[in-house]
């Protein structure tokens, strides 16, 4: 844990809510990005990210100070997302079905500074992730978005290092096959 995080956590446990606000500001984008990549929906992602922070706040007393705060926070957010995905598994899309574009991915309100190319890349990446089962998706997100090592992914997800490697390989394999089979037709064009 960085000294800053430890200091902020200590202040929060002593009742300093402003310190918690600092932690939220610091990690809002990583956590929001994680929930967004997992859920693929801006509205749900925002709610999930908010819930993750609230859960972290209420469980802060049980937080092991030897662990990295960010890893701990990520594990709360990712577990929450997997729970949500489990609940909506009945409407889960199969690999054979095209993944619909969520309006949020092409939302003009996402910010005028975002170029069309970035938006398209984001949509294409999201489409690729949408082809994966939730746990495999989580591995990919932690590996590629946050450059987590296998050990860090293992710590965050609770899976063994060999399971992490295996899931990552399977995820890449699934994505590669889907690109090949044309399930993500627009994907190749978008990413080139």
């Amino acid at each position, binding site marked *: 844990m960085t000294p800053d995080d430890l200091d902020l956590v200590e202040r929060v446990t002593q009742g300093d809510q402003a310190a918690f606000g600092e932690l*939220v500001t610091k990690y809002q984008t*990583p956590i*929001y990005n994680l929930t967004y990549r997992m859920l693929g929906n801006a509205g749900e992602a925002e709610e999930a*990210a*908010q819930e993750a922070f609230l859960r972290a706040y209420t469980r802060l007393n049980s937080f092991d100070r030897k662990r990295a705060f960010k890893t701990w926070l990520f594990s709360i957010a990712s577990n929450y997302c997997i729970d949500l995905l489990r609940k909506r598994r009945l409407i889960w899309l199969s690999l054979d079905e095209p993944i619909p574009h969520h309006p949020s991915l092409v939302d003009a309100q996402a910010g005028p500074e975002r170029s069309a190319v970035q938006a398209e890349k984001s949509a294409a990446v999201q489409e690729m992730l949408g082809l994966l089962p939730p746990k495999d998706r989580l591995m990919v997100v932690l590996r590629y978005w946050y450059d987590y090592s296998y050990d860090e992914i293992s710590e965050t997800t609770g899976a063994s290092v060999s399971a992490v490697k*295996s899931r990552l390989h399977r995820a890449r*394999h699934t994505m590669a*096959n889907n690109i*090949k089979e044309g399930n993500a037709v627009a994907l190749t064009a978008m990413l080139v």
Partner: protein
Amino acid sequence: MKEKEFQALAQQKLDGTLSADQEAAFASLIAQNDSRRKQWQRLQNVHTRLQNPPLEEAPALFAANVMAALQARQMQAKLLPSWFNRILPVVVLGVSTAAALPLMIGILLITVVSQQPMLMNAANVLLGDSLIVAQNIIGSLLTMGVAFLGWLLPQPSFLMMLGVTPVLAFVWLRTMRHYSPQLSA
């Protein structure tokens, strides 16, 4: 080469952790084996495409919204202390049991009385219209009780209860009509 071995090598290759010997072996494998080469190219393609992925920025006012939600929850916790949530199911169960117990005893009594024409006649003589009223009230309460029980249970049980309730009500009315002279008339 088995799939597992290839998987491990490909993973290491992507991570850049292959030794010189392994590197040479891997290069030789994909040069000789057409399907492995294609498989590797596709994996590498995905890996490359996932490099430096775009980060989705948190919405404006996200932190402020989290803090507002936190304060709202703390306020709620003050109004409804944590013990309230723990004790609520116990209270609900206690009240429903307390309500259901006399009801069940009443149902049992009336059912026993209804099964015996002699007892039924005696009850009719003693209670008259009150017996019919009691039967109807108990029948309604039974129906509502079953529906309430269904409401307390998870959704599939609730749906089952919805199906069971009219059947119970029907059986109850049939029994009453059969044994009660007033209703039969």
